[in-house]
């Protein structure tokens, strides 16, 4: 089944890639201005934050961010391989000191040039604690982060405030010239040059620093699209930046409207009737019974996402610490059946802890334990000596509940133990349980990589104290391998070490891999082609609008 599903999703993906490549090569040009002046409308959600680059962690604002800002590196749409954007070169000899040279003549939308200090100032501002940016901790690798970001002595809910940081700038950032700067990290980090393509690392023009709040309402970036307007709950409007220098990311339409919907269902109906040009996800009603395949036909877009779904096993629950029990549960989940039926083939079974679209992925790291085998599951369960019931927790909205209930059923049938799904009303409530270490059983964990590195599937999730180490595990062997990999100067060597670290996971099962999502989106018939990228977003440069005949 694994290969068949792969082929199924790969074929349209290849087609889309060919089509978009074709369009870029001039396939869409004969019609001239008719399509170049076109406006396209895509699905959006209300941005919860103020949309400054270091504050935008959600998909709603990211759509705007990715049009308006260009970072040092960009990512290839299919697999996320980094390439230089604003950077002309990024060099390092020890993975600790990175020298960045910028392309000359790259301008912000207000006409000022993008200089080294625009990066350095923006990063310092984003990391500075009192500015309270949601992505502040993204800068923690940089030397001197501790000087600008101080911790609250009694936790965020206590009465005391975090002390004002000693410095406003990180000593690891040094401007060398207008077009050159140097980044020194606290410790070597081999994939840092990939990380800096992420949204919070965008440059900010000088205008920003005079009035950050005013700027947030009318951002000026350096990307392929310029900000026009934002009406809360209604839409975000962007327009093409005609001076954009990078051919690869140039857009071939004039205006972009990110229309905000409160429900995917409503957007999907607009898409079917041609009022909306693109959606990166489909509502559950369209997925039911794989209805989307007939409804969309050649308008269906697919992508290999860099994501993985696992069931977290909290270390703080003594009854789940049992390795035999963990293996028994892993063996008892019928991944193939659930991905095929409940998930309507928009997911495929996982066979390890990293996504199969990432460099460094190896087949079957989880081995036999991620293959459904009720007999063996029962055997391990008997050996574990566990009694009582098993629970799986997650927020129940957004289609989360159904596959996990199916997993629970599968566990129940295979092990003959009671298993219940315990739902939280929304994502926020569920995160509260995790952050407060209040899980009472298995917890859902869906991880989407922030950047295309195998490192991103390991460090944040399984390293001691990792930012998303929801199971609160700690494994010295894993930690030391990861530390070694981080410090390796050559990326290829680092990947080998990360792979070794990956192989440590099956020895203690901090979480149980279940499935990996395949992105399914759709375009309207107004578009000749469009690519859904590895981040489940529209690759703006890939859009070719159909010529009106």
């Amino acid at each position, binding site marked *: 089944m694994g290969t068949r599903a792969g082929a199924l999703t790969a074929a349209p993906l290849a087609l889309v890639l060919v089509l978009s490549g074709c369009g870029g090569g001039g396939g869409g040009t004969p019609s001239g201005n008719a399509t170049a002046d076109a406006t396209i409308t895509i699905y959006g959600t209300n941005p919860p*934050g103020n949309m400054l680059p270091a504050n935008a962690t959600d998909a709603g604002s990211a759509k705007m961010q990715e049009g308006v800002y260009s970072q040092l590196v960009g990512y290839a749409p299919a697999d996320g391989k980094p390439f230089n954007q604003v950077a002309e070169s990024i060099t390092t000899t020890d993975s600790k000191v990175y020298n960045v040279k910028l392309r000359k003549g790259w301008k912000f939308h207000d006409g000022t040039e993008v200089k080294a200090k625009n990066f350095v100032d923006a990063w310092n501002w984003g990391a500075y604690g*009192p500015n309270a940016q949601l992505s502040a901790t993204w800068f923690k690798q940089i030397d001197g982060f501790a000087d600008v*970001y101080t911790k609250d002595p009694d936790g*965020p*809910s206590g009465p005391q405030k975090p002390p004002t940081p000693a410095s406003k700038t990180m000593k690891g950032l040094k401007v060398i010239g207008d077009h050159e700067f140097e980044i020194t990290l606290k410790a070597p980090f081999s994939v840092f040059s990939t990380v800096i393509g992420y949204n919070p690392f965008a440059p900010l023009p000088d205008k920003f620093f005079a009035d950050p709040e005013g700027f947030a309402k009318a951002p000026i970036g350096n990307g392929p699209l310029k900000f026009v307007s934002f009406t809360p*709950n209604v839409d975000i409007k962007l327009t093409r930046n005609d001076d954009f220098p990078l051919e690869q990311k140039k857009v071939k339409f004039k205006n972009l409207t990110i229309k905000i919907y409160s429900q995917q269902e*409503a957007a999907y109906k607009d898409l*079917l009737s041609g009022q909306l040009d693109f959606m990166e996800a489909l509502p559950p009603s369209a997925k039911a019974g794989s209805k989307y395949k007939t409804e969309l036909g050649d308008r269906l877009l697919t992508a290999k996402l860099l994501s993985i779904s696992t069931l977290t096993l909290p270390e703080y629950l003594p009854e789940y610490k049992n390795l035999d029990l963990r293996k028994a549960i892993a063996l008892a989940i019928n991944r193939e059946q659930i991905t095929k039926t409940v998930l309507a083939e928009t997911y495929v079974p996982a066979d390890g802890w990293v996504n199969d679209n990432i460099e460094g992925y190896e087949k079957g790291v989880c081995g036999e334990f991620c293959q459904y085998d009720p007999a063996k599951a029962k055997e391990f369960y008997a050996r574990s000596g566990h009694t009582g019931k098993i629970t799986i927790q997650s927020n129940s909205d957004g289609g989360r509940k159904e596959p996990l209930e199916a997993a629970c059923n599968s566990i129940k049938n295979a092990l003959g133990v009671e298993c219940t799904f315990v739902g939280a009303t929304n994502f*926020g409530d569920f995160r509260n349980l995790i952050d407060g270490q209040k899980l009472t059983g298995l917890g859902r964990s869906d991880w989407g990589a922030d950047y295309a590195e195998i490192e991103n599937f390991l460090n944040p999730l399984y390293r001691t104290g990792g930012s998303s180490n929801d199971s609160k595990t700690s494994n010295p062997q894993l930690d030391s391998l990861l530390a070694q990999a981080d410090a390796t100067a050559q990326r290829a060597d680092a990947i080998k070490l990360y792979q070794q670290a990956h192989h440590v996971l099956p020895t203690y099962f901090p979480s149980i891999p279940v499935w990996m999502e395949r992105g399914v989106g759709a375009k309207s018939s107004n578009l000749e082609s469009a690519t859904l990228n590895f981040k489940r977003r529209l690759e703006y440069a890939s859009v070719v609008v159909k010529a009106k005949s």
Partner: protein
Amino acid sequence: MGRYLLRRLLQFIPVFLGTTFIVYTLVWAVPGDPFAGKCGERQCPETFVSLMTDRYGLNDPLVVQYFTYLGKVVSGNLGETFSGVSISEQLLNSAPITVRLAIVALLIQIVIGVVAGVVTGIRGRGFLDNLVLVSTLFLISLPTFVTGSVLQILLGVEWGIINPTVSAEATWGELIVPGFVLGAISMAYVTRLTRTSIAENRRADYVRTAIAKGQPNRRVVFVHLLRNSAIPVVTFLGTDLGSLMGGAIVTEGVFNINGIGGLIFRNIAEKEGVMVTTIVTLLVLVYLLMSLFVDLLYAVLDPRIRYD
């Protein structure tokens, strides 16, 4: 009359304070941190949570928070949501749309509902009466969500007569179908109420007298019969306008209308307590004003009712 009005208006104050306090307490009593889940699968940076907790006074005791809020409201400042969007701005964007939607729904209820009720009430048993009874029963039994989705798919996606969703401007024309969906159930009730009331009063003494005096049929129906039968219908319509404003959550969701319903739904989900309290307070005011208006209307409809 004047004293009655004044007394009623004064009653608004304790009702207003009571409801806002209850709503405020309920909103903040819901467990959960408004900042959880804001940072995806990661925990939010402490500095962010500290700053926001501070800025919105979330560490103060509830009573202090409530009175700070009340003070702000009285001084005309509704404050900002956690994402820094002005609450009054959002309300000014959304409220007119919902008011328009509610008016469309109300008009549909009055026009279709009252006409159908009067016709069947006067004619009595027959094919038309049965048809109206069955169709109203059908409408009442369908949830708004179903009516909305079916009309949206048929008219919007299949036949292309309307756009499946309403644009940002939400013009009167675009709101006809959503207005119908929103008002459908109440329309059925209005029909049935009018029908029963008319049928009952048809045999009343004053109607017989009016007919005996040789008054034209139209005058008998519209001036004597309808006016006296209107009281239960007006009572229903009055409170219904209030519930239309609040009950638009489903309709606004289906047709993606940027109105009060959607606003309240989103803000409950995002735990934007101040926003929720403000909207609910507004709705309470609408209810209070509508019930006052309905009470005053009784006197106009039936001069025997006096308020002194």
